[in-house]
């Protein structure tokens, strides 16, 4: 493996059997999660009490946040705002229901992007596993691809997507968003899968060679199962980055219906209604967790392959 590929992938750890998750630990995790949220809320209010309204400066740099109600509204105000209608227009839904439907939209688009990105990533990793030359040639570009800002790509994707008309199929805006999300998601999956495909020790690889097993067969029976411990965390991370990508892309392309659009819309009323944008931010963060959590479910049926999970 080239240096660049060793890079982003986690270290290999000794095979340690992963105990099947017991119900109590799942319950514990939820409890810890709730606890963490409460702690965060308490911390937030504490900061508001302790730090002066104008924040704190160390020379030129501001090191402590402003704590007035414009910058940091009270937690209860945010919660209260979530339950109020979005706008004064008659029939306006509550912020909560608007955010839920927006999250649902973004989640679907992000998962579509994640699916495309993951499949692409897996294929690319398989290609690089198959031919070393491909690996040498591609890995640096795969790494560098992630330094191209999405904001430079969004107009291109929208522009070129708009030219696709095949029969009755017409390129939709949300497809551009999903495509951009997939551009972020493919990266961790590619690197994780490559690392996983290359993880079987020489003894196992040679065993398959000694059995005169074909490349396809070796991929299917050896490399793919062996890559599961690497793949699962990569897919999880891919899901989270797909959400980030979808949100940026929604903002960037002005796609309606998603949480990215809500963030901007709510931000426009940040000066007069400061609790509203915070609600959207919290929703976006939760969405990332939910997406990663959903993908974690994939691991449930794969217990036997997770003998050496790399977290």
């Amino acid at each position, binding site marked *: 493996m080239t240096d660049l590929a060793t890079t982003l992938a986690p270290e290999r750890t000794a095979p340690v059997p992963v105990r099947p998750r017991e119900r109590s630990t799942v319950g514990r995790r939820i409890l810890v999660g709730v606890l963490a949220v409460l702690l965060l809320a308490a911390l937030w209010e504490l900061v508001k009490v302790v730090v002066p309204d104008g924040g704190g400066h160390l020379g030129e740099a501001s090191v402590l946040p*402003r704590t*007035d*109600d*414009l*910058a940091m509204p009270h937690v209860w105000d945010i919660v209260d705002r979530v339950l109020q209608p*979005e*706008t*004064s*227009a008659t029939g306006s839904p509550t912020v909560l229901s608007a955010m839920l439907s927006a999250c649902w939209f973004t989640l679907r688009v992000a998962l579509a992007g994640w699916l495309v990105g993951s499949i692409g990533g897996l294929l690319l990793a398989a290609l690089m596993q198959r031919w070393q030359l491909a690996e040498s040639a591609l890995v640096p570009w795969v790494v560098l691809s992630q330094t191209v800002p999405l*904001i430079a790509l*969004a*107009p291109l994707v*929208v*522009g070129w997507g*708009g*030219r696709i008309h095949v029969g009755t199929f017409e390129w939709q805006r949300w497809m551009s968003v999903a495509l951009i999300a997939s551009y972020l998601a493919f990266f961790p999956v590619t690197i994780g899968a490559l690392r996983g495909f290359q993880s079987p020790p020489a003894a196992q690889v040679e065993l398959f060679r000694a059995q005169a097993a074909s490349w396809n067969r070796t991929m299917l029976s050896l490399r793919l199962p062996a890559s599961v411990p690497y793949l699962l965390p990569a897919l999880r991370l891919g899901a989270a980055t797909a959400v980030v990508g979808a949100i940026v892309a*929604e*903002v*960037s*392309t*002005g*796609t*309606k219906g998603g949480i990215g*659009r*809500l963030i*901007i*819309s*709510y*931000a*426009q*009323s*940040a*000066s*007069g*209604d*400061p609790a*509203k*944008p915070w609600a959207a931010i919290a929703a976006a963060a939760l969405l990332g967790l939910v997406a990663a959590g959903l993908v974690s479910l994939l691991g449930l049926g794969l217990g036997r392959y997770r003998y050496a999970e790399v977290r």
Partner: protein
Amino acid sequence: SSDSGGEAEEEPSMSSEVLIPVKLQLQWFTQAQFAGYYAAIDQGYYVDEGLDVQIVEGGTDIVPQSVLADGSVDYAIAWVPKALASREQGAGITDVAQIFQRSGTLQVSFADKGISTAADLEGKTVGNWGYGNEFELFAGMTKAGLDPATDVTLVQQQFDMNAFLAGDIDAAQAMTYNEYAQLLEAENPETGELYTADDFTAIDWNDEGTAMLQDAIWANSEKLASDEEYQETTVKFIKASLKGWIYARDNPEEARDIVVAQGSQLGNSHQLWQTNEINKLIWPSPDGIGMIDEDAWAQTVDVALTTKNDQGATVITTEPDAEAYTNEYVEQALAELRDEGVDVSGEDFEPIEVTLEAGGN
């Protein structure tokens, strides 16, 4: 899309029923800035002209004129200087109706800062949005003898006015119809009441002589030149759109309701304020709404050619060619409207009084 127009022609028997599909690309999300088009849909003006208009919202990185030149949409709303820049990059587009006759951009400061002209900006922290919305500001400063790159600290503003309210920015960019309203919807922590217009001073670029033309309807030049069907559609589209704007002038509250119903996130009072301010930018239009004023065009081109931004670039480098704008279609549309007895100049337009609520609600 133009092909579908062709289809309609091939089947004349259906033409009374089949509407020509038209897509309009906006430069931002749904809001009263585009009230006229939404009103035209709502009031059936487009259908009356045989058009089925679909409005496509914009986004931060969507450049409407590119989308138009691509052929993905049939018309686009864009500011003139930005559209001229795209023309230089090969986008074949033509300004066929200049809806906004005035610039709506202000540079707002707290009254106690004593900033009322461009020259007062020297040494101050000056906000702008970037995205090509900054040239009037730069031209104003240049005209006042300031170098935008060195004599002020430039800060990009977010979509809110928090940085200005917190005092990070001395003079912030604000559209009369949007951000300025946001200021008046915010609570003044000293009084516990909303801010009032007296708390602020504003530099108006119309007064400074560096205003540039803003929202205009752009059409695809290539199709204008070769496609007769498209030419006809253009006239119809302009005509119905103008009617929409006239409706918004005469019925601001109804226009506001139409926009709000389209799912804008901005509140009722904010949208009404916006409708009213937009009306002020359009009306009165002495030559008729949509007519491109030679002098205003010349000033826009002049500023675009000469003003350098902080990157040392001007908007355009050469004088735009004759195809950049034409009054041909808007004149036809106006003629038809005048025939119908519609007031297209709004000489006695009077803005309404709008009271903003907290948070724009």
